[in-house]
């Protein structure tokens, strides 16, 4: 007898659209996080122009309560993102590992780093947020002091974050878009390089600033 293609268990037991919703949740939360991350990095990079610019931007966000809405919102989005992407991690991660080692395929390996960076970000970003909130409000001096002391922490977080964001968003374009992989890959690599450069420059300025404060 022919399989009709419709499994009664599947259509009765759970919402048949659940996989779509989860996938969309991953897509949207991912895009929001990337948007946030890039905005965040641009804002942070205002330190390059000067501590005053940085402080007044922080002040502005504070005054208009944008930080108080933004931070919990992004926290929530990040939580959703974590919940929906965890389903992608294979039950038996050995299967994936064995596959990746057999098939020497670039993108298959980048995905392993996607998981590794995700774990790293989850830990480091939590610490970072905790530290920022503890030292509220945001201002150039406190930030500089933190970064002077923990520059290696921020260097790692910066690279992990940008890697994860860059490849994550690339993968979404690949999955949904009609732009050629090469084209989108090039565009995103360029953006990532710019953001990382900005981040490094900001970090360097902060570290200098932090050194001067001492």
């Amino acid at each position, binding site marked *: 007898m*022919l*399989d*009709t*293609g*419709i499994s009664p268990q*599947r*259509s009765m037991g759970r919402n*048949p*659209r659940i*996989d*779509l919703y*989860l*996938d*969309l949740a991953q897509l949207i939360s991912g895009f929001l996080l990337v948007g946030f991350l890039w905005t965040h990095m641009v804002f942070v990079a205002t330190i390059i122009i000067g501590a005053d610019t940085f402080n007044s931007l922080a002040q502005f966000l504070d005054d208009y309560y944008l930080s108080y809405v933004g931070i919990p919102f992004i926290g929530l989005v990040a939580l959703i993102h974590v919940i929906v992407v965890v389903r*992608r991690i*294979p039950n*038996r991660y050995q*299967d*994936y590992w064995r*596959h*990746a080692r*057999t*098939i*020497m*395929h670039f*993108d*298959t390996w980048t*995905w392993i780093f996607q998981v590794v960076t995700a774990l790293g970000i989850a830990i480091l970003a939590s610490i970072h947020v905790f530290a920022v909130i503890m030292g509220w409000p945001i201002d150039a001096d406190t930030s500089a002091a933190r970064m002077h002391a923990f520059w290696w922490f921020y260097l790692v977080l910066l690279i992990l974050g940008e890697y994860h964001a860059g490849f994550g968003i690339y*993968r*979404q374009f*690949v*999955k*949904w*878009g*009609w732009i*050629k*992989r090469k084209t989108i890959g090039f565009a995103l690599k360029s953006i990532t390089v710019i953001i990382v450069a900005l981040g490094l420059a900001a970090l360097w300025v902060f570290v200098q600033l932090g050194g001067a404060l001492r």
Partner: protein
Amino acid sequence: MSNRTLTFSVFRYNPATPEIKPCMQSYQLKEAGGMTMFVALTKIREEQDPSLMFDFVCRASICGSCAMLINGKPRLACKTLTRDYGTKITLMPLPVFKLIGDLSVDTGTWFRRLSVKTRAWVHTKKEFDPTVLEERMDNATALEIYEPERCIECGCCIAGCATANIREDFLGAAGLNRVARFMVDPRDERSEQEYFEIVGSDEGVFGCYGLMACEDNCPTKLPLQYQLAFVRRKMAVAGLKR
């Protein structure tokens, strides 16, 4: 002309003799000009080891029988030239598919199941009328159908796919590409919702991680990223519309 001696390291296992464990066996062969894996393996079988199992049919990259892992990558053996490799070549059967023996795997059964699951035929309520002219079709549409139709079901995309290696029920690029072929065919009267039933889940298009090993390994050079994204967008719209 080449005067290299090639060493083939070939996976051996015969399910009829389970007491002999799977192993890698080496064969030496003098390389000839323009030698393909088809020529090499046939020579090995005829001159050195007639028990060696592998599959070739058309030996012209049309039928899709001879996919195997050549130095770890899924390739059609018939169109792989030995001169593109070093002197040591490792041959393994494709993963995912059931092993028949040595380099031979059962892609036939897998793809048959796929066709049944995706109901891969033109669904129409019309009856064929032998007395009238064919229905007209734009040539551009015909070519658009032909593009995904070119898949030769060799299994390279499936063997290279992380999802297919992890979950047994995943349709893979070959399956989604096949569905795309019917989606663009105006003769197929299935609604978006019917397609959603087939591919609107993690078993179908939403199970794809987007690693694109399928496209990178496709010997027919099908635009799989384009086809998979097309199905995904269409299914997202169908799913949200209800």
